[in-house]
C-alpha cells in the first residue's frame, strides 16, 4: 500500500486487513487516520473473506500524517477491550473501534460512560469474545491418535498425539494458543478449526490452514468412561435443563462426546425419580391417635416387603397407661398365628423371668419393633429371619405411634432390633445394657438381650446370660419403683 501524499477532503478510504484478528495492523492504520483527521464515516474496513468488492472504488493508499501531528491517545481500558473485541466475528467491529478512538480524542474519559451506546457495544463485543474463549477452554475435547512416525519420546508418551476439532464463533484461535500450551506443555497436540489450526509438539507452536471435521479423529476409547462419569454424576432428582442450556448451548453439543447422552438422561430422569420416591418414600398419613387405629393401620401396612408375606400384623397389648413398655423384635411363628405378642417359647421364657423379678406382665404394655413376621419357607416350616435395618427403620413409625399414646415412663428394649427401633442406630447389647438411656420424650430406655437368644444357648453360657438378663430385669423393677 503506497502512501498518499496529500489528503483530499471527501476521499473514501478502503483498508484491507491481512488477518481477521490483526490488532496491531488495525492500530497502526487507525492512528494514521486520526492524525490526518479522517472522520469515521469516510473509512471502510475489509477483512479477508469479507465483502471487499463493495468498496472497489475507494482509495486504497494510506494518507500520510502531517509533520508535528498530535500523538493519538487512548486509555488503557480502551486498548484492553479493543484487543479482545477485534477477535469478534462482527464485520462492523473495526469501524466501531475507529469511531471510539476518534471520539476518545475529544473526550478522554468517555470509556467510563457506560450508558454511551458505542461504549456499550464495545463491552458487548468484548464480553462475547471472552465467553467464546472461555467455552473453548472448557469444551475442546482431545482424542488420542497413536502416530507411528514418532516412536517413544523421552517422556515415554512421544507416540501419543492428541487432536481436537472445535468450532469457535469468533476469531479466537490464535489468542488462546497460550492457554493450551501452558496447560498441556508436555503433550503433543493439535486443535483443528474451520478458521485455522494449531499444532504443539512439546516445544514449538505451529499454525496450519483451516481444517474440516473429518480431518480430526472420530472417537477415543476413553470416551466410554467419560460418558459413564457424565451419566453417573448427574442427579436425576434435580432436573434443571434451562440452567444447563444457558451455559452449554446446543451449538456446542455436536463436538462433545457426552452430549449424545443428554436426551435420554432427561427423559429417564423424571421416571427414575418418581420410581425412587415411590420405593423409598413412606407416605405415612397422619399419626393414628388411638391404639385401635394403629391396629387397623398396621394390618394394611405394606411399606416394606415383610408386610406382603403370608402373615398378619401383630399389635402390642396391655394397659394404655402402662408405666413399662416391653419391646421385642418381631412376632414369631406362633405369635403370627395367634395374633398376639410373646405367646411362643420366647414369651414363656420371658414370663418366667418377669415373675422372678417381680414384674407383672399384665401391667406392662408388650409389643414388637417390627409388626409382621419375617420368615423363609422351608418345607412345612416357616424359619424366622432377622428384619433388616431398613425394615426396622420403616416400622419405627408404628412403634413411635404406640409410644406417643401409651407414654411409658420406662421402655425395655430386648435385642438389637428393638434397640435400633428405639434409637435409630445399631448398638451393642453388651455395651448398652445396665445403664438407662434418656429418650427425647422424657422416658428412659433400658436395653437387654432378647429371650429367644437365651433359648439358643446351652450350659454355662446360658446360665451366664440368664443371670445378666435377670440382673437387667431386677434393675428395671427397682427403677420402676423409684419412678412410681
Amino acid at each position: 500500500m503506497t502512501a498518499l501524499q496529500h489528503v483530499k477532503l471527501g476521499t473514501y478510504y478502503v483498508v484491507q486487513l491481512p488477518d481477521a484478528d490483526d490488532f496491531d495492523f488495525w492500530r497502526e492504520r487507525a492512528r494514521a487516520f486520526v492524525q490526518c483527521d479522517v472522520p469515521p464515516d469516510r473509512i471502510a474496513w475489509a477483512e479477508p473473506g469479507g465483502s471487499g468488492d463493495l468498496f472497489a472504488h475507494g482509495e486504497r493508499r494510506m494518507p500520510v500524517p502531517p509533520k508535528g501531528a498530535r500523538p493519538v491517545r487512548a486509555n488503557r481500558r480502551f486498548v484492553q477491550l479493543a484487543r479482545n473485541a477485534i477477535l469478534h466475528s462482527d464485520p462492523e467491529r473495526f469501524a466501531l473501534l475507529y469511531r471510539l478512538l476518534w471520539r476518545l480524542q475529544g473526550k478522554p474519559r468517555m470509556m467510563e460512560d457506560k450508558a454511551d451506546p458505542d461504549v456499550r457495544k464495545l463491552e458487548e463485543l468484548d464480553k462475547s469474545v471472552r465467553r467464546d474463549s472461555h467455552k473453548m477452554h472448557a469444551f475442546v475435547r482431545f482424542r488420542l491418535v497413536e502416530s507411528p512416525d514418532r516412536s517413544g519420546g523421552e517422556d515415554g508418551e512421544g507416540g501419543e498425539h492428541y487432536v481436537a476439532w472445535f468450532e469457535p464463533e469468533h476469531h479466537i484461535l490464535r489468542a488462546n494458543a497460550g492457554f493450551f500450551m501452558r496447560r498441556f506443555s508436555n503433550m503433543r497436540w493439535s486443535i483443528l478449526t474451520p478458521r485455522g489450526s494449531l499444532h504443539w509438539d512439546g516445544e514449538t507452536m505451529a499454525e496450519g490452514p483451516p481444517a474440516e471435521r473429518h480431518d480430526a479423529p472420530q472417537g477415543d476409547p476413553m470416551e466410554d468412561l467419560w460418558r459413564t462419569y457424565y451419566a453417573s454424576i448427574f442427579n436425576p432428582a434435580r432436573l434443571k435443563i434451562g440452567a444447563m442450556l444457558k451455559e452449554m448451548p446446543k451449538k456446542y453439543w455436536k463436538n462433545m462426546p457426552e452430549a449424545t447422552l443428554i436426551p435420554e438422561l432427561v427423559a429417564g430422569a423424571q421416571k427414575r425419580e418418581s420410581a425412587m420416591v415411590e420405593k423409598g418414600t413412606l407416605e405415612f398419613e397422619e399419626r393414628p391417635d388411638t391404639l385401635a387405629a394403629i391396629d387397623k393401620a398396621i394390618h394394611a401396612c405394606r411399606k416394606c416387603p415383610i408386610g406382603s408375606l403370608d402373615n398378619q400384623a401383630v399389635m402390642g397389648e396391655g394397659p394404655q397407661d402402662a408405666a413399662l413398655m416391653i419391646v421385642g423384635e418381631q412376632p414369631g411363628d406362633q405369635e403370627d398365628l395367634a395374633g398376639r405378642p410373646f405367646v411362643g417359647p420366647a414369651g414363656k421364657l420371658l414370663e418366667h423371668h418377669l415373675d422372678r423379678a417381680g414384674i407383672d406382665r399384665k401391667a406392662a404394655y408388650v409389643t414388637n419393633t417390627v409388626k409382621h413376621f419375617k420368615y423363609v419357607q422351608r418345607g412345612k416350616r416357616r424359619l424366622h429371619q432377622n428384619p433388616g435395618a431398613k425394615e426396622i427403620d420403616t416400622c419405627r413409625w408404628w412403634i413411635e405411634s404406640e409410644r406417643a399414646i401409651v407414654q411409658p415412663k420406662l421402655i425395655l428394649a430386648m435385642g438389637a432390633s428393638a434397640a435400633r427401633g428405639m434409637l435409630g442406630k445399631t448398638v451393642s447389647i453388651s455395651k448398652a445394657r445396665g445403664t438407662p438411656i434418656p429418650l427425647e420424650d422424657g422416658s428412659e430406655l433400658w436395653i437387654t438381650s432378647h429371650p429367644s437368644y437365651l433359648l439358643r444357648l446351652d450350659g454355662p453360657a446360658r446360665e451366664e446370660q440368664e443371670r445378666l438378663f435377670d440382673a437387667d430385669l431386677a434393675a428395671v423393677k427397682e427403677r420402676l419403683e423409684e419412678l412410681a
Partner: protein
Amino acid sequence: MTLQTVLQKLEILADAAKYDASCASSGTAKKNSLGGKGIGSTEGMGICHAYAPDGRCISLLKILLTNHCVFDCHYCVNRKSSNVARARFTPQEVVDLTLAFYRRNYIEGLFLSSGIVKNSNHTMEQIVEVARILREEHDFRGYIHLKTIPEADAEIVHQAGLYADRVSINVELPTDSGLTRLAPDKDARQMEGAMGKVKEDLVEAKDARKRFRHAPRFAPAGQSTQMIVGADAATDADIVGKASRLYDNFRLRRVYYSAFSPIPDASAVLPLKRPPLIREHRLYQSDWLMRFYGYKPSDVMHATEADGNLPLDIDPKLAWALKFREAFPVDVNRATKEQLLRVPGLGVKAVGKILASRRHRGLRLDDVSLLTQSITKVRPFICTIDWRPITLTDRADLRSLLAPKTEQLELFV
C-alpha cells in the same frame, strides 16, 4: 463376586459422590506445566468443562475412593445400613483416570472423597496417597480438592493440605441436634476442631510464605464446607446463622448448600420428600448478599418470614426491601454505593456502572435501564432526574406486583 471393571467402579463411585454440591476449581494459586514434566494448569478462573442436565457444572472428576463405610448417617446413600452396590478404587486407578481425563480436556482436576473404611486414619492416608502420586510421580499441576476426615490425625490432614488446592470438611447439618439424630457417628465438636486446625495451618502457611519465598503452599484455594438443607427442621435463619459463624470462625472460602434429595434405599427417619430446590437457591442468594453486598447475617434473618424461612416466591434482597421500605427510594445520582447495593434488581456490576456513569451525566430512567437487567424491578425503589416512584414504594400490593408470575404450565404437569 466377580471382579469389577474400572467402568463399573466409576459408575458406582461417581454416583455415590454426586450428592456433594461443590465442584469449584477457582481461586487457587496460578500454576502451569511449562518447565515441568507433567501436565496441568490453574489460572485463577475455574472452568466448567460440561454441564449435566441438573444444571450443575462438571469441573472436576468427583468420585469416592470407596463407598464402603463404617458410619451410619441417615441422609447418606453410602451409610452402613444402605443397600447400594459397593466398590473400591485403588489409588493408582484414580490417578490413571484423572490423568486420562485431564489429557483429553474433560476436567480441571480431581475432587476426591471417601467412605470410612477400617478407620479414619487409614482412609485419610489412602486419599493423600492419590494426591501424592499425582503431584510427585506425575508432576500434575491441575486442581486437587480433597475431602478430609475430621477424626483422622492432624498430621495426615496437614499432609493433604500440602498436596491439595482445597480441603473441606462437611458440617452436614446446620444444628447439633440434627447431627446427633441423623449422623449418630459424627461429632460436631470434632468437626469444628478439625476445621479450626486447618484454619491454623492456612494462616501459618500464608505467614511463612511472606517470610520465605519457597515455603510450601498449604491449600491455596482455602477450605470449604457443605450443609444439607431440608433433612432436618432447621430454618433458613438457623442455617444463615450457622453459615456466618463458620465464615467468621474458620475463614471458609465457601459454604455450600445441598438441598436434600431423595436417595435410593433411603432411611426411614428422613422426611423423604425433597425440599423445593428453590430453597437452596434462596440460601445461595442470601450467601451472596452477605459476601458481596455488605448484608449482615441479621439483615438476612430480618428478611425471613414468621416461620424463620426465606420466602420462596421472591428473592431475599427484595424481601428485605419490602420489609424496610423507609430505606427507599434511593436517588441513583446521589446515593452511596452501600445504599445502591440494597436496591432490588441492581447487582454489583450495575452499581459499579452507575457510579462510573453518573460522573459524566445526570442519570435518567432510560440510562439506568441500559445498565440493568430489568428496569421494572428496580423502578419502585429509585429516583432519577426524570423519575420518582411517588406512591409505588408504599403500595401494599407491591410484593404481588414484583413477585415473578407463576408459570401457567405448572398446572398441567
